[in-house]
């Protein structure tokens, strides 16, 4: 196989019909339809472990008209279309597991307008989240949603998954900042929903329905976002605890003191040890939990809130607490949280990052429950995340080459989902269902709810061509038979699905 390289290439590797490809090339231009073997291989994954596939081709449209024309063509052919941002998702939402056409926004990545009177931004979906942050902050404005992958994730992808982040505790998630959408239906019709208005109750709120629909209802081509003034300053506090429950109690005490911090993050014992081993920033590895609390806003308000924090910190069960004097020190304290993912991912070859969420009051119990599951299943799990909004990231540290270990990890995942649901929570707070969790959606919702969701899907996408394998377990066989995924590219590819 190795030797026959160029011969196979010259011999041609046809996935889509030649005529279909020609038509698509006529729409998007020669360079914006990719179909070499190498292209197909690198558009088959996202950041989700053990989920993969091979698309039939990749298309990079440059404007909504091209999106519409490609979708119309795909509809006629019954060709599945998988929208993709930067491929940094953690639920397999952009993975072409059964082949099809991957559609990315790489050529639609402009910030179209920043309006400093209405406090809105109009952007194309391919804009990188961190780039928007930078641009609006130059104007003294702020766009709060800050998913961990924001340096690479696109806003289109954030809209598709309704992304969150540490600052969502105080400021809300992506959906709370989307004022309007321009989106294309699978049949090529263009929807314009909402816009610069701050209040809008005309008809059904389709705009908010599309946010978080994981690319299964329509393809977003333009987004109107709400901005707020940039908080003037912030203060940060770091607390060490001997007991996880005490840490959670302190989190509750802060909220009960009528203070909403801009971030309230927790790191458990396993995470603390990994972070300290990796970054050596002076955390006490004897601690059972660490809390990081940040307040932001106007100078006077922050001062008042900081003194409340200090008071809570002093009376809490923390055996050590530090308040950052300035922004530089605040950055140093936050390094503990920022390096959590890097530290955990260095511990073992495979990192499975979950995002279960429970009511705030239950967050401490969930951390405890996860630790027990870790012990009983024999899987090392580091938990960190957003204690303040009950959204935790239990991170399973495993080796995907060890099938026996993977089956224990699978059991641990299922128990974690059950624990979260038992506390009135959800199996996904910010990553989405995609492929990785579709088998468990039925555990969270009644058949009636699922049926209603499927009806919504059918209303938008009657032929089921938009991301057809995501969110729900497939009810019947896919009409499309991908030539790529049955072709020679899929060899001894480990673990095709997370279930």
């Amino acid at each position, binding site marked *: *196989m*190795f*030797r*026959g*390289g*160029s011969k*196979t*290439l010259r011999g041609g590797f046809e996935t889509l019909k030649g005529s279909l490809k020609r038509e698509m090339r006529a729409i998007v231009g020669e360079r914006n339809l*990719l179909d*070499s*073997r*190498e*292209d197909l*291989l*690198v*558009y088959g*994954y*996202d*950041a989700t*472990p053990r989920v993969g596939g091979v698309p039939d081709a990749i298309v*990079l449209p440059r404007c909504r008209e091209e999106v519409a024309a490609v979708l119309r063509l795909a509809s006629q052919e019954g060709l599945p279309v998988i929208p993709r941002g*930067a*491929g*940094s998702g953690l639920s397999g939402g952009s993975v072409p597991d059964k082949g099809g056409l991957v559609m990315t926004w*790489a*050529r639609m*990545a402009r910030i179209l307008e920043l309006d400093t009177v209405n406090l809105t931004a109009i952007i194309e979906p391919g804009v*990188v989240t*961190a780039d928007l942050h930078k641009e609006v902050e130059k104007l003294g404005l702020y766009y709060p949603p800050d998913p961990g*992958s924001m*340096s*690479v994730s696109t806003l289109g992808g954030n809209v598709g998954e309704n992304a969150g982040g540490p600052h969502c505790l105080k400021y809300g998630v992506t959906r709370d900042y989307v004022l309007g959408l321009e989106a294309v239906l699978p049949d090529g019709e263009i929807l314009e929903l909402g816009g610069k208005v701050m209040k809008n109750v005309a008809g059904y709120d389709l705009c908010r329905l599309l946010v978080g629909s994981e690319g299964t209802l329509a393809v977003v081509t333009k987004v109107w976002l709400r901005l707020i003034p940039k908080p003037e300053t912030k203060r940060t506090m770091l607390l060490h605890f001997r007991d996880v429950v005490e840490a959670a109690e302190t989190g509750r005490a802060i909220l009960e003191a009528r203070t909403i911090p801009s971030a309230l993050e927790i790191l458990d014992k396993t995470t603390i040890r990994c972070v300290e081993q990796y970054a050596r920033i002076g955390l006490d590895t004897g601690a059972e939990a660490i809390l990081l609390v940040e307040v932001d806003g106007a100078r006077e308000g922050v001062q008042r809130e900081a003194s409340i924090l200090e008071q809570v910190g002093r009376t809490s069960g923390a055996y050590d607490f530090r308040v950052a004097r300035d922004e530089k020190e605040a950055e140093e304290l936050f390094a503990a949280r920022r390096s959590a*993912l*890097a530290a955990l*991912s*260095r511990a073992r*070859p*495979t*990192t499975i990052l979950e995002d279960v969420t429970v009511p705030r009051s239950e967050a401490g119990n969930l951390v405890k429950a996860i630790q027990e599951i870790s012990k009983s299943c024999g899987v090392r799990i580091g938990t960190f995340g957003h204690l303040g909004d009950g959204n935790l990231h239990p991170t399973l540290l495993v080796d*995907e*080459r060890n099938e026996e270990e993977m089956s224990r990890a699978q059991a641990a995942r299922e128990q974690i989902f059950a624990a979260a649901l038992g506390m009135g929570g959800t199996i996904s707070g910010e990553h989405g269902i995609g492929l990785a969790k579709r088998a468990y959606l039925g555990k969270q919702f009644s058949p009636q709810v699922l049926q209603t969701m499927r009806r919504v899907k059918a209303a938008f996408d009657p032929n089921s061509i938009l991301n057809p394998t995501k969110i729900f377990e497939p009810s019947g066989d896919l009409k499309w038979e991908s030539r790529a995924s049955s072709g020679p*590219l*899929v*060899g*001894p*590819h480990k673990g095709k699905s997370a279930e």
Partner: protein
Amino acid sequence: MTIEQIGKRAFGSDGLERIREELIGCMRCGFCLSVCPIYSETGTETNSPRGWLALTKAVVEERHPATRNFAHLVTNCLSCKACTSVCPPGVPIDDLILAARALTAQSRRGLAVKAALLRLAMGHPARMDRALMPVRLLYQRSGLQSLFRRWGLGKVLPFGAGRLDQFIPAFARRSGRKGIPYLTPAQGERKHRVGYFQSCMDAAVFPESARATVAVLAANGCEVVTPPATACCGMPSRALGDLRTVRECASWNAALFEKAVVDAVIVDCATCGSMLREYPGVMGTEPSQAQIEAFSRRVVDVSAFLSQIGCREPERPKDGIRVTYHDPCHLGRGQGVTEEPRRMLELVGAELVEMAESDLCCGGAGSYNVTHPELSLAVLERKMANIKSTGASVVATGCPACQIQLQAGVKRHGLSVGVVHPVVLLAQAYALERQRS
């Protein structure tokens, strides 16, 4: 040949296994995409660190053949190490991409020919100089250059060959190697005995940098040994996937400097420096591994060494020039040297104005500007915009390859901005001092 055999030939017996183990570490988070200059220009996963790793993984797992396209794609990497510096699980991405080239070199004839030619030239510096001589003669003196420029020949040549002209530097009339004696005595009391590893680029294009380095070291109490018979550092061969030659260069250079008995081996070329320091990690067994490790530990960039020994401050000129500093990838990320060259600029009384993204690759990347002119130019444009907005009259940078690229950028934009190695400014300040006294 099976992949196992190819791997054994390229990396030695356990090399392929090591590569597989390192590739497993990639969790495909995509953080590397946010800093990759090539992804930023192309916007395609096929031209991104994560994509290159995924392809390499498919090849070493025999899910995908090492096609010509694969071989071509992995040469699109600049080796700027930006990806490696942000990778959460710490995968040595740039190193793995170079390893992928070594895999393809075993089965691609075109690459092997290039590597063999290079191998002939770089065994000996005199040969390297001689190899460059025909280029010099052919290009500069034969009139081909003026043909290019006056007749606009560049515009009619295919494959963007015409664009090469702007990247071909003005070669020195005389090789820099001839001007530096084997032993340069320390000025005043002898405090250190150091070796100087002269880079090919300095010899051929910037002999003034080499002279400045030796002069500055001598002025700071160093006795400088400059062996004329150094071999190439090996990076050009490594970039083409020829690791055997790299290992041979390593053995040769290590033995050479062991004989010289020096406290440190000073380098003023960022790429040479990082290559020499990375010798022990280049895969394959080598009988002189201990000697190579001892050598690599002693290699240090000129600015870092001077700051270690406490560089003597020259008499400051009255009005300092406005200077901005470009961090060479192989000095900043490659060797962790970022503050020392800046301190050197402050030492000569320059007003240092930081440019945005000072550690962004300039697109030079060895011979990348010649092999990939279009991508290289695109990356250069971003760098030039950052330089322009500083209003500096001089760009300093500790790497001759960056110097060539930035000079081309300055010319393209018609700027009157000088491009120098910081050590040249320091040497000038010392010389000025002597004139005054």
